[in-house]
């Protein structure tokens, strides 16, 4: 049972890490444009570079 002494903090730390990551995504505005995000993957920004003049 002594394993619990470090297993409990370890579990909580990992979970807090996840929570912190989620809070960061909210604060950095990643949920502000839910409609635009799904479309942006279709934009081929680097396409022009591959087409020789």
């Amino acid at each position, binding site marked *: 049972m002594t394993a*619990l002494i470090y297993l409990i903090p370890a579990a909580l730390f990992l979970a807090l890490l996840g929570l912190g990551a989620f809070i960061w995504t909210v604060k950095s505005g990643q949920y502000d444009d839910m409609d635009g995000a799904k*479309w942006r993957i279709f934009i081929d920004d680097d396409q022009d570079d591959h087409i020789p003049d």
Partner: protein
Amino acid sequence: MSISDTEESRGCPTMGGPVAQKGAAADPSAFVRHEDDGLSHLDLLVRGARCAGCISKIEKGVNAIAGVQTSQLNLSTGKLTVGWVPGAADPGIIARTVADLGYQVSPYDPGEAEEERDKQGRFLLLCMAVAGFAAMNIMLFSVSVWAGFSGEMQENTRSLFHWVSALIALPAAAFAGQPFFRSAFASLRKGKANMDVPISLAVLLALGVSLYETITGGEHAYFDAAVMLLFFLLIGRWLDHRLRGQTRLAARELLSLQSATANRIEADGSVHAVQARDIAPGDTIILWPGDRAPVDGQITAGRSDVDMALVSGESAPGLVEKGDFIRAGMVNLTDKLTVLAKARTEDSLLAELTRLVEAGETARGKFVKLADRAAQAYVPIVHTLAVLSFVGWILVGAGVHHAVLISAAVLIITCPCALGLAAPAVQIVAVGRLFKRGVLVKAGDALERLAEIDTVLLDKTGTLTLGKPRLVNAADINDEALELAAKLARTSRHPLSRALADLAGPGAVAKDATETAGHGVEGHVDGVRVRLGRADWTGVNDADQQASGLWLVAEGRDPVHFIFEDALRLDAADMVAGLMARGYDVEMLSGDRKAPALAAAADAGIKNVSFELTPQEKIARVEALVRDGKTVLMIGDGLNDAPALAAANVSMSLASAADASQAAADMVLQGEKLLPVLTAIDISRAARGRILQNFGFAAGYNMVAVPLAVFGFVTPMIAAIAMSSSSIIVTLNALRPFKRHTPS
């Protein structure tokens, strides 16, 4: 594919949206902000963008302007944020670039109330995350405790687990419970109990009892149940908030209509772009073709055609000249006008209509949502039950400690988790389904209201009819004559010219075309002088001159007559028949004259017709019906319909409608068809049925679970299982596809 400035590359590449008229952009200089990063910033509201092609086109187009450093388009809100080195770029050019790409663009003025709501959305999301984190981690300990319940776990280990759970649950609940605690407190102060009161009580009591148990080394702690309850309820809250976000979008469009800029002539003769709300009576402003009048005023110089569709619903433009009055919201079509402002923006007709819209929306706010109605019946029952079981257990000789534990279990198990999810989950699904069928629903409860209607009121111009002139005698006109006319028509903003140009498609224009307001367009094609316009102006001797006709006259060819008519939408009669088949009373309210109103009503199959109505009379009719106990659906499009749309119990508008009408309406039909009205009604009825079904599930679950709780069989494990399973059942039932009711 390269983006060139051809007509084909204008507007949304998937061709879903209305294409703005070229170059129609107000100068947004007055809205430029200077920020800490050393750049000048401008927010523009872009309408008509809806796909990857739009994002790419707009951002690339704006980035290509010299001096522009950043441009970011938010597709959900339509907000385009542009940053540039101060002085290096002209805000007017930025707006015009977007307008030239084929999108409607106006300065973005969010207003304080809206920013506040955005913050609230983020806060709900944060609360949900914290509750979810806490629920999952407490479950880690709770499951261990339940698994070791048969005696394998020592008492001090259990106590440790309870303490750790308490350490997670108490701060998490204090944070994530705020939306409920605040709302419950506010409601109690008004002497009422909303659904948040039993929620808050259950959470607080569960936490209190569990803390007491933890301190005294007891067996049962409900930390997991309390936090999981918050988690499920916050999911429902957030879904609800997202639904209401679409209403915010519409309100912003109404604001953008007013936040336009105007070109004011200063005392020294220079012209400056200022915010429309800064225009004072006595100021002189310039209206270029394509500009919308920001205030009511009198024309001091110039002569032009003016589009009054937005103000009066009349589709034919009128000719104005020096001395005439124009109202806010009218659009200048042909020539430069100089206008002396006679009223402030807040005193203008547009502002008065906006106020009427707001008044109607306040009245509509009295509608009580299904979930709230259920809560009103539910709250007293739950609290009585909890008190009764407390008293009951005391009477049969149990200790106060035991009795409190039981009543806490009753509150937890009856907590309206499923009620909180039942309505928003169904509405999200129904709204998504309607969106695919071309109906944009702006308010979740609009579906509930739509399911209860018994009377349908319809506007004529632009609703039952297309609202745009259509060439009637296309069969009599050869392609060559049409193309010749289109070469002139493409240069003009007049509705009849637009109709011709749309019909002919993109193409060349006559080089030296000049437009004479109220008469027509003249130009040279292949060295031949060509005129397109009114009969008397083109020199045609037509005995019975058609008011709604254009003549094409060129040397060396016979004059060609183009006849136009505002035709009924193809599916208008089908829609009216469908409404009647569903047992609704259908009535037409038109601002138009008697003869065309009666003719359109006869074609559409409507028997009750009112005509020559002012906006006030339209509201009066709606209010009279509502007073008689009717539930009214109003479908309209003009600015003159906007107040009536807001006054009706539920309202629909069309994508081609005035911005203010779209803002006032609960739903907007995308596209030119009316049959989606029937789809919307059927889906709203099905959604209502599904919500009631979900309430039924919730009630059934309570009938099983409540006796267990009252008689003291509910352990923390049973509470957790019962609560999550009822929420999951309700959500799955909401996601089940709707049956199709619409006869095809």
